[in-house]
């Protein structure tokens, strides 16, 4: 079984503080790993290292094709939601209950709707590895259910998910605890 994401002896230092010390793990197809830990323990940094956006001080990171949903929406605020998503190859609006918001400008969306838009982009990406930073933040209970369904379908299709979250996520997750 080839892993979709593998960390090998990763050290990462941010602002003079050691965040990960010899961190090794792997996520294979169909697996989901939740990174837990208190605020500032490096959950988001771990996601950014996995995405290749942050360099490690030593160690290796191998990642398959990936899609990222974090706090930065990366959608043009003045455009209608469907058009803004089209720049990135589109988003799966119905899967996150956003179908009727397709013509609404991004700047008018609420925090929860923006989060769902970012998740819709990930859902439409066809990337085998999903990196989700606090995916359930600002979501109502209905949307949390939609997210769980999406993740289940993605795993059933052989995809993998790495999520950082301080609250428990629905479904069957392995956990990785940071900041011990």
């Amino acid at each position, binding site marked *: 079984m080839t892993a979709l994401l593998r960390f090998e002896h990763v050290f990462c230092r941010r602002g003079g503080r050691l965040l990960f010390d010899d961190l090794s793990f792997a996520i294979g197809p169909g697996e989901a790993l939740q990174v837990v830990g208190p605020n500032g323990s490096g959950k988001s940094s771990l996601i*950014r290292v996995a*995405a*290749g956006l942050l360099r490690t001080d030593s160690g290796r990171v191998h990642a398959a094709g990936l899609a990222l949903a974090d706090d930065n929406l*990366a*959608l043009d605020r*003045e455009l209608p939601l469907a058009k803004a998503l089209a*720049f*990135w190859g589109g988003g799966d609006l119905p899967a996150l209950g956003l179908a009727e918001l397709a013509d609404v400008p991004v700047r008018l969306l609420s925090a929860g709707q923006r989060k769902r838009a970012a998740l819709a982009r990930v859902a439409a990406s066809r990337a085998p590895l999903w990196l989700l930073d606090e995916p359930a933040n600002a979501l109502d209970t209905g949307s949390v259910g939609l997210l769980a369904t999406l993740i289940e379908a993605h795993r059933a299709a052989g995809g993998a998910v790495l999520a950082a979250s301080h609250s428990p996520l629905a479904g069957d997750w392995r956990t990785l605890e940071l900041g011990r």
Partner: protein
Amino acid sequence: MIGALVAREVRRGFSGPAWLPVAFFLLVATLVPFAVGPDGGLLGRIAGGILWIAALTAALLPIERLIEPDRADGVLDQLAIRGVADESVAAAKIAGHWLSFGPLLLASAVVGALLLRLPPEQLPRLLAVLAIGSLGLAALAVTVAALTAGLPRAGALAGLLLLPLAIPLLIFGAAASGDRASGALLLEAAVALLLVAGSPFVAGGAIRASRT
């Protein structure tokens, strides 16, 4: 992806206040006769230089919206994840920025030349030199925008960085606008080429370094 990125830059350039640098350019050109007097001969002699100073100051205005909003909103990260090199992003931004800045600048230079009584036979040459020089200015603007993205008081810092770096463009541009015989036009083109060719690498490196 690169084509879509250039198109997006052009759309954002025109959907924002694209006329702002142009208005600024014309305002500077209008102020000069108040400062040096309405003597047509004097104005005609210095018109080329004034228009170049005006173009330089107008190039400063859009800097803050070139890179920083996309950095803060994660657009640069999403592009990197899709395998688009930061250098390619910078090159696309230079192309898109020039397309929304250069033609408008040239159009307003015609009006500015009339205001300053530039001898009509010099106008085509001035426009040709401005077209070449504005490419260099666009490349420089994107580079400085990338270098200052995310820094406090980036606007003031950008001015301090861009204006000295634009001095070669100014010297050869102003010289080439007036003087037909010298090689200033070739030197201006050489400086612009160097900036356009080198800027994507500097700006791309700056984008990478700004990731936290």
